[in-house]
């Protein structure tokens, strides 16, 4: 595959992922129907409970709960495996494997690994997989705009939330621009590019994108000024709790309490 095709495929995949997350958040699964604030609070508390647990089985139970919530929220388990579990396993595995051999303790049969090492590695991998699964549940069941608004409710500074939201929005716009740019390059390119040509194209494209993003940020600032922006951002925080949200809050509270008690 050529350099241009690889770049285009990468850009396309990034846009596709963003679209899938938006599509999934708009569907009518279990978690999608719950107030964003409850999800942010509840899932974050479950992550904390998983990381604090001193026993393996409560963490495993939380992971099982996360899988059930995934299915009830109409998110494909395949997406979970490819987006979260494999990456988390590889990344954490690289850190956990030495612990199997280096942690002092009782050997398991004739193997060069210890029981304590296996437990340590098990804790690390299980905690990361559980935390990542719970975090991705929030991303796949909540529109990004609602996550940002929920952060405001938890007293995250408004400037941080506004800048974060705008950054996400303009990353997608620049992704579109980069995609169009590389597509037009491909339509005018015949044969394979040499190493120096590829480097030249990458540097030139980065320069053009940087220039465009700088121009865009200047125009966006003017557009904000034109509508009265004077350095302070004011936003609407309009959430309404329903009976279902109160029930979800109580369920999350009970689950977190049970996980903390079982893992103490």
């Amino acid at each position, binding site marked *: 595959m050529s350099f241009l095709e690889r770049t285009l495929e990468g850009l396309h995949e990034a846009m596709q992922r963003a679209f899938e997350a938006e599509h999934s958040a708009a569907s009518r699964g279990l978690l999608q129907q719950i107030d964003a604030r409850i999800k942010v609070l509840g899932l974050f508390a479950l992550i904390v409970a998983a990381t604090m647990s001193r026993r393996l089985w409560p963490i495993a139970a939380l992971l099982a709960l996360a899988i059930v919530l995934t299915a009830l929220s109409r998110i494909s388990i395949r997406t979970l495996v490819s987006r979260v579990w494999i990456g988390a396993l590889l990344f954490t595995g690289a850190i956990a494997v030495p612990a199997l051999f280096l942690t002092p303790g009782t050997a398991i049969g004739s193997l060069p690994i210890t029981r304590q090492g296996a437990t340590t590695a098990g804790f690390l991998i299980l905690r990361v997989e559980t935390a990542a699964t719970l975090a991705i549940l929030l991303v796949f069941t909540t529109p990004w705009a609602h996550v940002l608004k929920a952060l405001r409710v938890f007293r995250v500074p408004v400037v941080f939330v506004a800048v974060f*939201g705008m950054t996400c929005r303009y990353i997608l716009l620049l992704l579109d621009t980069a995609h169009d740019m590389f597509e037009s390059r491909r339509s005018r390119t015949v044969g394979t590019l040499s190493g120096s040509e590829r480097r030249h194209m990458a540097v030139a494209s980065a320069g053009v994108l940087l220039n465009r993003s700088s121009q865009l940020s200047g125009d*966006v600032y003017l557009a904000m000024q034109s*509508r009265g922006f004077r350095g302070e951002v004011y936003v609407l925080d309009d959430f309404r709790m329903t009976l279902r949200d109160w029930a979800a809050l109580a369920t999350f509270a009970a689950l977190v309490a049970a996980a903390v008690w079982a893992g103490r």
Partner: protein
Amino acid sequence: MLFDLDRVTFRYEGVIALDDLSLSIPEGSRVGLLGANGSGKSTLLRLLDGLCFPQDGSIRFRGSELTEARFAEDDFACGFRREVGLVFQNPDVQLFNPTVFDEVAFGPLQLRWPKSEVRERVAGILDRLRIAHLRDRVPHRLSGGEKKRVALASMLVLDPAVLLLDEPTASLDPRSQSQIIDLLVEWGGGAKTVIVATHDLADLEDIADRCCVLDSGRLVAERAPAEILRDRDLLERANLVHAHRHRHASGAMHSHPHEHRR
């Protein structure tokens, strides 16, 4: 007089965008700024909106000179932003909020309107522009026509006395173009000041009662739209009409300068 421009010159890194331009715009007028790409229309709108300031000459708004120092005063800046609104040519620069509703609410919130009034006014303008169904959508996923309407709604919600529009119908399909033109014609019952930059001659007589032609940053004509449209030499000099091959109903094919009308 609403706007009074006296010998205004503006340069971008040494390149002249507006050159010694003098112009007066009365309250309640509907002005069409005509000119080819790069003629200085967008720069003039930004100057009128107090987003940049002339290097030479002066701009007065209801007698007050527009300077950076004046915009540093909260009262003046808020009052001016409440009165004058600019809709940018590229809606993407104007749509930076997470949802359409938040986008339209952004301006009123910055001007510290009460939140209950903001909600009411935003819902009203979304209904009026027939985009209420988009209220929870993410702006970057909208079509070009929808983005333009949201950008327009984000300004109209402030109900400004002066509306500046930069190519409001550019890159839109014919139906969206005519809907936006209808809205501009009806908006404010004709009592508001509307200044529209365009190089589309088709709707000029509908949206403007006065027309200024810019060429390379200079004001080359200022007349009624009908007179401007009759002046072929002027339109050709300002690159607003061009010659290309076309076929008439009789089947004859030839080439001469002409404007396009829908």
